[in-house]
């Protein structure tokens, strides 16, 4: 069997362990622990990609490996708290970012929907405009803004609002800022479309029936914009859970997010079986909100006259 070769692949794991600059230390001995547990290396899904097998054997190897299809790698995910922590932390970060994006995006969308009709296309253009620059460049730009000697700190120091530079880069705050900034248009656009088509006479009717403007907002405008709130939140939440670039560039090393873990498993650890399992679980995790989103959309379509 392909024993020795697999060992070579696995050895990448040891390599990475040395290079990793992990603060908590719990990952240092992971590779060894994993190998001990599994005993002699078993062929994983990775060996499918090996091209040095004689052609006549390939089919039988494939079948053999399919026969060995098991849940070992999934079980492994439950044994190491790293993965659970990464999933939970990703969902929490994505949820907080979504909430922040909603809080920032709703007033923007509301303002756009209430703006004079002639102004609206321009405002819409301004929301879409950032897409004309590469996503990566925009995230890099935030490093320049948020770093200790960056634009934001210089501005605040210059205004005399703070004495010591704020530490924002490489914290969760930087991730929130990055995600909210990057995904804001995905929040604003569905909100705008649901607010814009709302009949203003509904608000007048509510006021006419004795409702103050703030009450009319919560009783009429907000419930009617819920399809937009749900659509926007899903469009932010789903990609934010698997986000890799923003936590990598802005979040620093101590941020644990599943996108980063996945990247490490694939490219640093080269442990494709485990990383495949991580990806499948992530997919399952996201299918739930996606289905929720779909059914909400279907319901909104049904109710729309």
């Amino acid at each position, binding site marked *: 069997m392909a024993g020795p070769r697999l060992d070579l692949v696995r050895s990448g794991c040891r390599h990475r362990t040395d290079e990793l600059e992990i603060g908590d230390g719990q990952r240092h001995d992971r590779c060894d622990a994993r190998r001990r547990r599994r005993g002699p290396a078993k062929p994983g899904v990775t060996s499918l990609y090996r091209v040095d097998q004689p052609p006549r054997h390939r089919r039988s190897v494939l079948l053999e490996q399919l026969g060995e299809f098991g849940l070992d790698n999934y079980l492994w995910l439950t044994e190491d708290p790293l993965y659970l922590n990464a999933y939970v932390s990703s969902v929490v970060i994505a949820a907080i970012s979504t909430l922040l994006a909603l809080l920032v995006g709703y007033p923007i969308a509301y303002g756009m929907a209430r703006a004079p009709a002639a102004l609206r296309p321009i405002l819409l253009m301004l929301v879409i405009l950032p897409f004309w620059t590469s996503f990566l460049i925009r995230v890099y730009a935030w490093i320049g803004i948020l770093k200790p000697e960056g634009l934001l700190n210089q501005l605040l120091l210059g205004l005399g609002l703070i004495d010591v530079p704020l530490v924002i880069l490489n914290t969760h705050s930087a991730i929130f800022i990055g995600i909210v900034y990057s995904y804001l248009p995905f929040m604003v656009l569905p909100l705008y479309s649901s607010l814009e088509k709302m009949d203003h006479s*509904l608000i*007048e*009717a509510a006021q*006419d029936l*004795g409702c103050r403007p703030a009450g009319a907002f919560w*009783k009429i405008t907000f419930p009617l914009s819920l399809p937009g709130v749900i659509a926007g939140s899903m469009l932010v939440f789903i990609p934010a859970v698997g986000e890799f670039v923003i936590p990598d560039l802005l979040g620093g090393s101590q941020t644990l997010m599943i996108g980063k873990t996945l990247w490490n498993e694939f490219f640093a650890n080269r442990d494709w079986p485990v990383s495949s399992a991580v990806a499948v679980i992530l997919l399952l995790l996201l299918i739930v909100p996606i289905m929720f989103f779909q059914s909400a959309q279907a319901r909104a379509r049904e109710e729309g006259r």
Partner: protein
Amino acid sequence: MNSLGSIRRVFAPWNDPAAKPYIVFERVTKTFGGFTAVNDLSLVIYEREFFALLGASGCGKTTLLRMLAGFEEPTSGRILLDGQDMRGIPPYRRPANMMFQSYALFPHMTVEQNIAFGLRQEGLPKPEIEARVADMLKLVKLGQFARRKPHQLSGGQRQRVALARSVAKRPKVLLLDEPLGALDRKLREETQFELMDLQQELGLTFVIVTHDQEEAMTMADRIAVMDKGKVMQVATPAEIYEAPASRFIADFVGSVNMFEGTVERSDEDGASIAGNDGFSIRTSNTGGAARGSSVAFAIRPEKIRVSSKPPEQTAFNAVAGEIYDIAYLGDMTVYHVKLPSGQVVKASALNAARITNDPLTWQDRAWISFDPDAGIVLTS
């Protein structure tokens, strides 16, 4: 209906100098940018009156209603409701409720919740709200639809929900903005009578905005005809129709024939007018026109007779022409008679008998004639 009719005839506070006006527009002007929607308008409406604002679109009638509801503030002038100046009072504190042209039903609420909305805002106790909603549902005959959403209702049902919602709070004044515009003709006619009954039953003051003169004539105690932000005439439907104040009103309300001419004689017995169409008119009312002034003699089509034979006398109020067009409407036939001058006169004849003994057809020579009291002299 008969008993209601008799009540309506008796009800005429506008003729009673002691009656206290309920809604007063005092020199109200409203401009939007450079456009004057309402121009120095004064108007008085009495309690329990069914008042119609009638006019073509853009005449300022809806703006007037929205100012009363509090959605717009007058640029100048003031509005009094039950003696209270309404300036600066927001819509949610005014004792007037509005029924919107689009109905503006809350799509995410059931019929019940829609009707209860205003009552909830008042903070009424729950049992009371439920009782009043049930009353309203009964009033508009929508009991079995209580738990439906607006999009599950027909246009007529939605209209009733909107009505129930706006009267549920028992406002002092109900404002109706083209309330029947979205309904088909038959439903509209039914609903007109229902609205009248409702107004009698609840004893409310109704102010309705409409561009449909038939609707205004059917329902209103008085009609204000508006044009270009001004009130042209305020009067009962019969007065508006039979005694229009100007050529504009005569033309706007109903169908009319107008003969321009010069007054030859004017005294207490009436007036003689030399019509520009080459026939002379004698009328029992002068409209205050002085001798020598040029006036219009307005006469409604149903007050003109058409016959193939000449009338008893042809010296005045009679002229021969040619049948130019015939519109058979079932209950009546409208003849268009072309006079030698080229003017086309509309005359309608009630089809009282199934088969007429004086059949007129296209290109026939026909006489039109009318009585001295059938028309009115208009100076403006």
